């Protein structure tokens, strides 16, 4: 379990990183916290020629709070959010979800950007941030674009990111007063990725009542007009693909319990 040979670069700026990632004929990969990429390198599931270490880029550590919401650099770790070392505009949802990801050692290094770019359907941030209506900021040679988290994933471990593109920030809308959320994760043991996971955000003032079901066989299922658990479950059942009986049941229970959690505040 030793990785194949690779070169390693630690560029000083975001532009340099994008430049390196876009080098012709070189298979390059960004390295953030290494919590997903590390095991894949060791198992030789991916064999890049060049690792571009973005974990210390100052641009990815930036935090900005505005009226509409919060911008978090893609390099911010799960632990930083869990410990509330960054501001929160989600009535506690982000810190709460962060604390349920893996073990502390993984949270110390794993990042928001790495989690979203990795595209694991069971990743907590995918479900949570899609429910919040967050967007990602993407930078590449062609410039800057912005995509809703819910639309980033194209399938299991597939995103619409180009080879030279990096997630630089995540923009999370501010919940209005009176907004509520619910989150529920089914996992067989603490620190495991979810077997089923669901998030619900109800923000009457902003007219948002959105539910998201994750840990599917592909992209998360987004239920834009959630209304209530029963209706949401019907939408989920219609949208779900490839679920067996058990999977249907646990995803439904995750969804119902997320609604319950929302009710109980």
């Amino acid at each position, binding site marked *: *379990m030793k990785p*194949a040979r690779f070169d390693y670069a630690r560029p000083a700026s975001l532009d340099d990183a994008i430049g390196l990632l876009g080098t012709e004929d070189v298979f390059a990969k960004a390295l953030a916290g290494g919590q997903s990429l590390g095991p894949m390198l060791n*198992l030789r599931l991916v064999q890049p020629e060049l690792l571009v270490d973005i974990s210390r880029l100052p641009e990815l550590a930036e935090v900005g709070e505005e009226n509409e919401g919060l911008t978090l650099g893609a390099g911010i770790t799960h632990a930083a959010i869990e410990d509330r070392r960054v501001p929160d505009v989600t009535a506690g949802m982000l810190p709460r979800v962060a604390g349920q990801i893996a073990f502390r050692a993984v949270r110390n290094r794993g990042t928001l950007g790495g989690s979203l770019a990795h595209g694991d359907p069971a990743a907590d941030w995918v479900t949570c941030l899609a429910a919040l209506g967050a967007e990602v900021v993407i930078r590449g040679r062609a410039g800057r674009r912005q995509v809703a988290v819910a639309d980033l994933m194209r399938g299991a471990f597939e995103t619409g990111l180009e080879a030279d593109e990096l997630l630089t920030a995540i923009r999370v809308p501010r919940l209005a007063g009176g907004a509520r959320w619910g989150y529920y994760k*089914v*996992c067989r043991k603490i620190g495991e990725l979810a077997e089923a996971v669901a998030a619900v955000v109800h923000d009457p003032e902003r007219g948002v009542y959105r539910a998201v079901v994750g840990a599917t066989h592909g992209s998360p299922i987004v239920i834009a007009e959630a209304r209530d658990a029963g209706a949401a479950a019907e939408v989920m059942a219609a949208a779900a693909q490839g679920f067996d*009986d*058990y999977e249907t049941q646990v995803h439904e*229970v995750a969804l119902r319990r997320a609604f319950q959690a929302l009710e109980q505040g």
Partner: protein
Amino acid sequence: MCFGLVATPPVRYNRTTPREGREPARIMTEIAARHVGQPTERTEDLRLLRGRGQYADDLAVSPRTVHAAILRSPHAHAEIVSIDAKAALSLPGVIAVVTGEDVQALTDPFLVALRQPLHQWSLAVGRVRYVGEPVALVLADDRYLAEDALDLLSVSYRELPVALDPAEAAQEDAPLVHEAAGTNLVSVRDFSYGDPDGAFAAADRRIALTTRFPRHSYMPIENFVVVAEYHEGDGAWDVLANFQGPYSTHPVMARALRVPGARLRLRTPRDSGGSFGIKLAVFPYIVLMAIAARMAGRPVKWVEDRYEHLLAANSCPERVTTIEAAVRDDGTITALRFDQLEDYGAYLRAPMPGPLYRMHGAMTGAYDIPNLAITSKIVVTNRMPAGLVRGFGGPQLYFALERLIQRVAVELDLDPLDVIRKNLIPAHAFPYRAAAGALYDSGDYAKAIEIATGDGRLDDLIRRRDAARAEGRLYGIGFAAVVEPGMSNMGYLSTLLTTEARERAGPKNGAISLATVNVDPLGAVSVSADCMPQGQGHETVLAQIVADQLGLAPDEIAVNLAHDTGKDPWSIAAGTYSCRFTPGTAVAVHKAARQLRDKLARIASNTLNLRPDDLVFTGARIQARDNPDNAVAFARAAGVAHWAPATLPDGMAPGLRETAAWTPPELAAPTEGDHINTSLTYGFVFDMCGVEVDPITAQVRIDRYVTMHDSGKLLNPLLAEGQVLGAFAQGVGTALHEEFVYDSEGSFLTATFADYLVPTVNEVPRPEILHMESPSPFTPLGAKGAGEGNCLATPACLANAVADALGIADPQLPMTPKRLHALMAARDEPAP
């Protein structure tokens, strides 16, 4: 969703007073135990917890050492058509590529317990028989390069049909794993004790069930490590490996390497990062690295990685048991019939098929059942070879037996606890000869159950169940009563052979333990012995034992259990496995210390002008029993044996180094009627628990767990508690999480910890631990093996509780949410 921690209940001890007229048969010590029996903290922890352990991978190697990586088979069954190593060999830094052809030229196949042509070498020869089987070995300057070279090896395979499921593999038309054997069902033996047919004919009811005990293994943190070097001049190997025994495997390795045992020096480091039986299975790699070192002319180091470990290191055998009881309407069981089919994977590695026979004499468990029929069948399949896993045949037996007891209760509409109680071996029957030959040394099972269920513990469980059920929740109670064997009879495996074959092979019995205690000229004491500790705390206990004998403090005794077959005492029984430390090695150390004490007493009696019997050893002095002032310092008496041998009493050998051997006479060879006392000591474990199953997610929550142990005299209660907690955690893993899964082509699906779930502290509630002590009359220390009990009891106890909660007859292990969900759905479906 995941379990909370229960507050730590205190550990309680109950000592049974010896029953009148039933004094233990042999008491060999009258020394006041000052240290033995105390909950002394582990002296090992000072180094282990501060990262100062000396594990195999930490030890310095020669700078000439090369590093090995192994190419493994991607197919479950295939012919190896060709191996092209050219590209790999041309990579700078690559030194050699070893293939099956080299192995076939330089070694012999490993010896097999059965007379069947199931040839296994350390690399696949001609054919691969399981996914993960070693196919080629690359030696390079470092491990990275070696793995790069693996990618350049090109092997062409011709795929063959596979035999995976044990029952299907046993069919006549199944694809053959070993063509030369002509069948996959390589051994079938029938045994009968008492009159099972008569008892079944006379029974009010016959109650049967079939259980499947799945493949899994327990996970050491440290994987296999081998460093092998060949000394041209001596024609001998020097190998360092984290091997754990049994050393009956040493002759197997030496024979494979075609050398006498003395030319295979095997050293084991002082510390081990866990074993649970698994580190036996490093032995084929020892042979492989040995010949690689010879071919390369340089030392070879190999460190197994986690992927390799999960894929191919070790598995317990899968066992399919059909068990049937002849029962009276009142719940009395008059006979048992076992039909056991055990899957050993692609090869029968030594000492397989141990798990199928280790419990053979004790198949009736804690029950007084005089009539017994057993059919034991061995099947080979295209899966990883089976090996030692903590519990070693016990979990397989008790999952069937204790599930059956619960079924008997359900079918007869009795309380399961009443069925257990009705059939228990009565206290007055000890020493008790079980139907198949086990000689249970001591115990009072009914009393153990009385203590465990007492103090309101059972009432509380029932209250919790009733309250939960009143709210419509799924709550169940489970029990398991288990006899825990300690120290195996080296002759038990020959029960597998017919009487005639046994006679031809020569008798096998006993279990030798060896230990040496040394006192230097200044009175400093050191100990070496034939065990390979893996975290149990052996150093601590041995120091306690020797300290008591010599009147010293435990911290004055230096125990170093790094082992060297070239220099230290060992026998074929050596190693740390099957709970042999306490009834075996500890006794040998006790005896060696005792011999030294006798010798020192004679020396001191000269000086003090007293009879040796009138001396006591205490506070680093040897003194008159009735006059403490009449004394000589321990160190002074020791010095005499070194500095003034001429003054020693007549006939006394100089020096102070005693090696003691111990083998108990109770471990006799199998009889003509196949009766076998499979182990020396038999402890008792009674488990009781309440669980709740989430009706929607189908997750199991352990609400309360009580575990009662009688392990004879406890040498160190703290260490015994550690054994119980560890075995319990692994029992929970077996019950709820851990399983090696193969797909229909034989590919392995659980090769990372994301797929193979090992419970952690979050998933393992703290059990309430109780003890009582029925000393063993068969060992001088009165102590029994105590390392495996909960591996035997906990899976069965939790399965019984889940069966009770859901009203199902067939909870399969591991009881994953997915499985339980399917069982609940099937149960809820209206009958057709």
